[in-house]
């Protein structure tokens, strides 16, 4: 019986990733392009799962394939679904992309082999985290969680604050106004109006 060869899954997924990327660039129908980015994210999630990173795969599947695709579709519903044909020559952008891509590939040649225990990322800050974690955290086996929430809790607090700030910023820019004609406006304004009416009544009593 032959042992399972990981390349049986790896090569098709990477090939599909490349094909999808080309398709996103080639297709002129923006709805189709958005769908292709969703497929790309889903393939990316599968790839993360092969690389033994299930948490990243969850995130990629939910954010990349799910929420961001929906947000792009929502944007397309407001703008338009056809890309304007470009008249500029594609030669300069092609050259820039080729040089950048070549530089990135050249950069990977220096990187340690995948999963190499002697790679700097596994030697620094301290491999002892993996051994200490179970005892320090009183039996919690997930080292990723204990590093993120325990040893580096302050860091994660900052990250949560970043998400909070992003949400507030989007809300400030895009929040529907009360005067606009939105489907939920009556739900929202009725609550506000009730408040205003209550205030008026109070004032009247004085």
């Amino acid at each position: 019986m032959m042992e399972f060869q990981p390349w049986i899954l790896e090569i098709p997924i990477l090939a599909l990733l490349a094909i999808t990327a080309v398709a996103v660039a080639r297709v002129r129908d923006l709805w189709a392009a958005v769908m292709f980015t969703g497929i790309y994210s889903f393939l990316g999630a599968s790839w993360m799962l092969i690389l033994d990173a299930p948490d990243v795969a969850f995130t990629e599947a939910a954010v990349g394939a799910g929420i961001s695709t929906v947000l792009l579709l929502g944007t397309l519903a407001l703008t338009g679904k056809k890309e304007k044909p470009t008249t500029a020559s594609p030669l300069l952008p092609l050259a820039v992309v080729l040089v950048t891509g070549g530089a990135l590939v050249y950069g990977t040649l220096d990187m340690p082999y995948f999963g190499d225990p002697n790679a700097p990322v596994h030697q620094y800050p301290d491999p002892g985290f993996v051994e200490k974690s179970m005892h320090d955290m009183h039996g919690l086996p997930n080292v990723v969680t204990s590093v993120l929430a325990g040893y580096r809790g302050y860091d994660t607090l900052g990250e949560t604050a970043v998400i909070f700030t992003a949400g507030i910023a989007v809300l400030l820019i895009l929040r529907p106004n009360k005067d606009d004609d939105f489907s939920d406006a009556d739900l929202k304004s009725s609550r506000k109006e009730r408040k205003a009416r209550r205030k008026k009544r109070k004032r009247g009593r004085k």
Partner: protein
Amino acid sequence: MISFPIIRIVTKLLIPYILLFGLYVQFHGDFGPGGGFQAGVIIASAIVLYSMVFGLPAAHKVAPPWVIEKLVAAGLLLYAGTGFASMFLPRPNQDVAVNGNFLEYAALRHNFLPGILPTDQHLGIFLVELGVGITVTAVMIIIFYAFAGRRRVA
């Protein structure tokens, strides 16, 4: 609205499992892969799916925007509050009463229902991850509402 019976029924069947999986990822994150961020986006995607199939007003009934707006801040407050709580509680196993540092979960140790309620580091991580989960869920839903609530201007 055009009704797609198959999509509506499949969505109705799927959403409880998506939410359950989100809760599993949230509360089992200390033991298996997962955590607050992953759980947050999974739960948010359930709400997004619901509002795509049943319409935005229906989703606003399930998750009212004003509640979600409050939750955006509540999650971050829970996280920071856990940190401050450990500053006002004494460190265990010390002769002189010294309060813990910011986010020093050891100060959260208690002897109330041991073995059932999480304590110590586990309690700290539990609360912190819950805070992350609440904030991420709320932010994702609020961004979706902000996009979906707009109409074409011209």
